[in-house]
């Protein structure tokens, strides 16, 4: 099955003060550890199972009208061995693939905003 790593970048206004979730196909982004400064997050969500679409879920809270943007792309991974603890080891293979409909721009309404949508992967 196609397993992918999702590379994402999330930029938010300072008045968004709570990121409840950023998920790709149900897998959470570890945004706490992906903070790069200036209200920006950049990281990777590994080993996500997808077919032709990837579900993106974002929920944030803050002051009304504050905005955020999510950009993401995927790269296929392949099992290339085993880690010391016996778990499968994956390596990225092939080109980075784009996701249709990105970047996602959101504006806080009623002090929070929830976004969930399936986005088609540009495999070919």
């Amino acid at each position, binding site marked *: *099955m196609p397993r992918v790593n999702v590379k994402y970048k999330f930029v938010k206004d300072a008045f968004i003060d709570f990121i409840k979730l950023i998920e790709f196909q149900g897998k959470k982004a570890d945004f706490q550890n992906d903070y790069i400064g200036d209200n920006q997050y950049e990281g990777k969500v590994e080993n996500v199972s*997808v077919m*032709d679409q990837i579900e993106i879920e974002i929920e944030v809270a803050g002051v009304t009208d504050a905005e955020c943007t999510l950009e993401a792309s995927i790269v296929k991974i392949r099992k290339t061995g085993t880690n010391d603890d016996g778990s499968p080891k994956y390596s990225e293979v092939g080109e980075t693939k784009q996701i249709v409909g990105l970047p996602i721009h959101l504006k806080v309404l009623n002090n929070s905003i929830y976004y969930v949508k399936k986005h088609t992967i540009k495999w070919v």
Partner: protein
Amino acid sequence: MGMKKLILLGLFSFILITIQGQVLMQDAEGHSSIVSPGGTVTIDISEGLIKTNYYSGPNDNKRGIMWGVDLQGKNSSGVASLFSSGDFSPNIEMSGLFGVYFSKINYGKFSKKVTQLENNKRSIEQRRPDIIDNLESNVKPIFQKYLDEIQKIKPANKTYTRLKSLSDSYTYYKVSEVQKIIEDVATDNPKINASTADQVKVILTNLINDIQSNRFTKEFNIVDSEIDLINKKLKSFKNDSVNYSLKAKPYVRFGLNTNNFTHDNGIDSLTLESRFSEVLDTKGFIELGLTLRLNNVFYGIALGYSGVSNFSALSKKTYKLVTVDTTLSDGDLESTKEITAYKGEFAELSKYYLNIDVIYLKSLGKSSKNYIGFGGYLRSNFYSDTDILKDYTSLGLNISFINGKEGRFLGGFYVQSNDIFSQNQKIFSKTISFGLTVKFAFKTLSFY
């Protein structure tokens, strides 16, 4: 000081340099009970105040810890004296802050339903990788078998290409796409004869039947539609207008306040040494505070205890010490030394205080990143001995402009009564101070 100069100082009293931070509210003393991540440098010309602070951040998670430091220098002789070694009385305040924060989105009457749906979704999501695995290992080979059959029929080249792209784009499980290909067999392949077209259609129809009846395809489609249904409900519940969000930051702040000055011990002293003494007045303080954002309103409240002296009630005097040198044969030589000292009985006492800040933020328009803030603050101070220092309450109102994208303070206006109940100053108009807050960008520094 002339009136014009006083007005100018009042108008341009604050210069705030914000470094990736928010300055939502600050009184004339540079204090706020609203704690926001980031760093600021404040220069208040009229108050002779320089303040720098840093609060950890961002605090975007559901819960976590936070910390911060403040360092403030203040001088009654004006800001310039803070940089010189003149006869000024520097007041240094340094403090540390430790706290926690909690964030919450409340879905009101939908709360239980949202939790239930989220749990359902999570359990389905956990099954999804296996379901996709099954699709790939069981359904894809079926698709591949039919694809190979179509490849052998040369006049159906275009049909093969379209079918292959379904495989390459992982949409082979979507029979509706195969149905479209069946409908287009004749138009896609102009040179194909009727019987070959029929043969292709039969193969593709068998493909549809095989995929449709496969239990792994059924399982995938069921899970997919279950998730679609959950998402639809979640979207409607979570984006309902009755929802609200809040962020709470309870904290403890503690620190030291030092004041260094020369004290005039009074006329009973017979020598210069006994008349004037250097006093290093160091006092500690501790406060419990809470910053709360509820929707678009920020609230701050802090209750504190502080050791204080009556330094502010002492009167400032400047003396001249004249020494005459009579050793010269052709005249007397006089040397003059100025001594600035504070006169009055020096006393130490306790202060209890209550600080409240409120600010409401309103966006300045759909295309603007800027917000206008309407705020107010209250500072109530109660002393252990009101014969020495009288209780007083300050009240301030301000309007400020803030860039919501960067959380940068842009400027604003404040008016403050230093003694709203006229406990120290009977003429109310004399308790009022006002100022324009201006901001200078300091983009070369970044704390994060």
